[in-house]
C-alpha cells in the first residue's frame, strides 16, 4: 500500500516496500539526492533530515514510520541558500569535500530552531553526532555561532 507523506511542502505518495529507509526512498524514489549516505547505521549523521521539524537520521527510519509526516531535506531548507545557516556556511567557507555538510546543515538548522542562541558548549554538544571526515569541525561550530547572531533576538 502506498505511503503518503509531505516532502519539502509537496505531497508525495510512495508505493514501495514500507520497510525502505527514508534515506533510500528520498534518493532512489523521490529523486532527492541532497541527503547523503555515510554509514547506514545512524552513526555519522550524513543522512540527517527533518521529520516534523525534528532532525532525524533517515538511514534507519522506515517509511512506514513517517506516513503523513512533514519531511524537510536540504533541498527544502531554502533552495536559494538564504537560510542563516546556509549563509554562515558559505561565509565561513566551512566545506572541504562537502559531502557531510547537508547532514551538518540540517542538524545545525534544527538546533537553532529549538535554541536560537546556543552557548558554545551547546553548539559543540549539539553537533557532536555528525562526523566530518575532512575535519571541518571548528568552522562548523563557528558557523553555527555566526548564524545564531544572524537570527534576530
Amino acid at each position, binding site marked *: 500500500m502506498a505511503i503518503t507523506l509531505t516532502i519539502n511542502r509537496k505531497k508525495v505518495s510512495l508505493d514501495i516496500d514500507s520497510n525502505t529507509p527514508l534515506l533510500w526512498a528520498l534518493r532512489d524514489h523521490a529523486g532527492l539526492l541532497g541527503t547523503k549516505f555515510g554509514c547506514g547505521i545512524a552513526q555519522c549523521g550524513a543522512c540527517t533530515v527533518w521529520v516534523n521539524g525534528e532532525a532525524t537520521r533517515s538511514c534507519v527510519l522506515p517509511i512506514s514510520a513517517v506516513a503523513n509526516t512533514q519531511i524537510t531535506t536540504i*533541498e527544502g531548507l531554502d533552495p536559494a541558500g538564504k537560510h542563516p545557516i546556509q549563509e554562515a556556511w558559505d561565509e565561513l567557507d566551512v566545506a*572541504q569535500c562537502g*559531502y557531510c555538510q547537508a547532514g551538518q546543515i540540517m542538524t545545525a538548522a534544527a538546533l537553532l530552531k529549538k535554541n536560537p542562541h546556543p552557548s558554545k558548549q551547546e553548539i559543540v554538544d549539539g553537533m557532536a553526532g555528525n562526523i566530518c571526515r575532512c575535519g571541518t569541525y571548528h568552522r562548523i561550530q563557528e558557523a553555527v555561532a555566526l548564524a545564531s547572531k544572524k537570527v534576530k533576538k
Partner: protein
Amino acid sequence: MKTTRRNFIQQTALFTSVFTLGFDWFESKGATMAIANEPGRFNAFLSIDAAGKIRLYSPNPEIGQGIKTAFPVVVAEELDVDWKQVEVLQANLDTQNFERQLTGGSGALKHSWERLRKAGASVRQMMVQAAANQWKVDASVCKTSKGFVLGPAGQKASYGSLAAEAAKLPVPSTVTFKDRKDYKIIGTRVRGVDNKDIVTGKPVFGIDVRKPGMVFAQIVRPPFGATLKSFSADDVKKMPGIIDVVSFKNKVAIVGTSTYEIMQARQNLTCSYGSDTPLEGNDTHQAWFDAGMKTDKATVQRKDGDFAKAISEAAKVIEATYECPFIAHSPMEPMNFFADVKPGSVILAGPTQVPQPAQKAVATLLGVPENTVQVELTKMGGGFGRRLNNDFALEAAELSSIIKKPVLVMWTREDDMGGGIYRPAVRYHFKAGIDAKGNITSFYLRGVGLNAGNSTRQDNFPVGAIDHVLIESVDQKSAVTTGPWRAPITNFLGFAEQAFLDEVAEAAGKDPIQMRLDLLARVKSNPVGKITYEADRFAEVIKQVAEKSQWKKKPGVHQGFSVYYSHFSYVAQVAEVQVKNGKPQVTHVTAVTDCGEVINLSGSENQVKGAIIDGMGHAMFAKLNFQAGVTSPTNFNAYRMIRGNEIPKIDAYFVDNGISPTGLGEPALPPTGGSIANAIYAATKKRFYKQPFY
C-alpha cells in the same frame, strides 16, 4: 578524444565568449598557449564574453583540498580582475591532451604555479595591447585594475569591450608577473567556488550520478587471499527488484532497481570461499613483523659512515619500536562508480582522483581503444588517497559489460571499510647513539612493512646531521591490499620519528626544540651525505612555533613538540595537554607551516586544521583487525572517527616568504601524532609506541 572540446563548445556556445585562450593547466615549461576559437591541444580555457564575464574551465578533479578554487585564484590574480567576475567550471577528462589531471601527492599546485600565472598574465598583456592600439599609445603607459585597462589620459576600457580585438593579437612570448606586494586575491580568504551547490544540496557527487536506463548494483568481495568456490543466487534472484546476479573475478554482483532492494537481497546470498594458503589474521602479521626485524636480507636505503662501529662506542644507546595497523581511508562518500559499456563507446562517471589511468585501465580490461572511453568527473566526497586506486571504476566497467546495462556500483560503508587498499601496517625499530656530551652520533632505522614498498624515508631529517646512519627496509607481501593514504608512509613514520627524537632529547638532557635547531645548524655547517630539505626553512618554522606557542612558558600546561618536512612543505607543531579528571586531554595545537606562497588563506587554514584533526583522530582511535582474511570492524560504530567534541583549539600560522607554493593537502598530518604523543608524555610520563593510542 573529444570530451573537452565538446564540453567546451557546448558551454561557450551558451556564453558567447569573444575571447578564448586555450592553455595547458599542468605543463610547467614550453607548452602551447593560443587563442582558441576551435580548441586544439589544450586542457584548460580562459574565456571572456563581451560583458566582461570571465570563465575558467579547470581540469582538476575536486576532492576537498580546494584546488578548484586555488588554481583560478592564481589566474585571476595575474589577469588582474575582480574575483567576482570569475566563474569556474569543471572540465571533463581530455586524455589526449592531458599531462597531469590527478589529485594526490599534494603536487597539483606546485606543478601548475608558473603555468597558471603565465596564462593570466598573457591575457592581461593582450588586453593592454588591444587598448593601447585603440588609444594609439604605448602599451607600457597603460595599467590594469579589476578587469579594466586604464590609459594615461584617463581612458578606461573593460576587458569585455576589448576582448574581440585582443583575440586577434598574437599571444605574447614573454610576460611580466605581478610583484607579490600588489597581490589582491592571492593570500586572501576566498570562499570555495562550489559552496552554493553544497549548502543547497545539489547532486554533484559520484553517488548522485543518474543516467537514463541506469540500474544499481552492489558487489560482494572475497576475504583477502580467498577465491570464490560457489555461490547460491536462486533465493537472491527471486527477491523483489533484483534484475540479475552475476560473478566475475571472485566477486558476486547483485543488480537491481533500487539500493534498498539490493541490500535486502544481499542478505540471502551465500558464498563459499577457498584458498591454497592459510588466510591472514592479526597473528600472521605480527609474525611477519618479527621475522622482518630479524632478517639479514633487508634493503639498505641509506648508509652514512659506519653505524655498527659508532653505536658500539656510544656513551648511551636509545632504542624503541613503533607499530601501526592497517587502516581504511573512510571518506564520507563510500566508493562508487558509474559505467555504461556499449559497443564502440564506454562512458564512465564518478569520483576518481586519477581519471586518466581509469580510462587506460578500463580500455585495457575491455580490449577497446582508449579514445572510445569517456570519463566524466564528479565532485568527490573525500579521498585521502583511496580514490587514487581505480578498482571501483574497473569493477563498474566489467559489470556493465557483462549485464549490458548502464550501472552505478554502490559500496556500502561495510564494503568500503572491508574492501582493502588500506594504509599499510608497519613496524619500525630505531636506535640512536649519543656521546658523553649528549650529541647524536649514530642513527638506525629499520622499517618492516606489509605491502608498504619502502616504508622508510631514508633522507628525512635528522639524517644529514648525523655522521653514522643506517636506514633499511623490509617489505613483506600480504594478501591485504594497500595503497597511498594521506601523506603515504609519513602519516605514521612522522609520528614514530618525532616521538623517538623526543626520547633521544630526554636521554641527552636536551630541550627537544633546541636539539632540532642544533642538528639543523650542523646540517648547514657540515652536512652529511645527500640533503633533501632546506635547513633554514626547517629552522624557521621551529623558531616561529616556539614563539607562537610560548614553548615552556606556560605553567601548568604540558607541551609536546614535533616538526616534519614532507611534500616539499615544512610544518612545526606544539601540542598542549591538560589533565582533566585524571585523563590527559589535548586542548591546543599550534602549527606553523611553510608551504611557500599561500594562495587561498581560507582553504589553506582548512587544510591544516583538517589534517591535524585527521592525524589526531587516526592516531588515537583507528585500527583494523584481521581474522581468516576478513577485516573488522567495518562501520563507524566500532571504528571510531574523531568528532567535533574531541578536537583541540588549533592555531594555524603560515610563514610569509613568497617562495613558489608547495603541497598543503598532506604535510600538516605527519607531525600531528608526534606532537600529541609527546605532550601526553609530558603530562603523564607514558609513551605511546603503537597506534592507535586508545
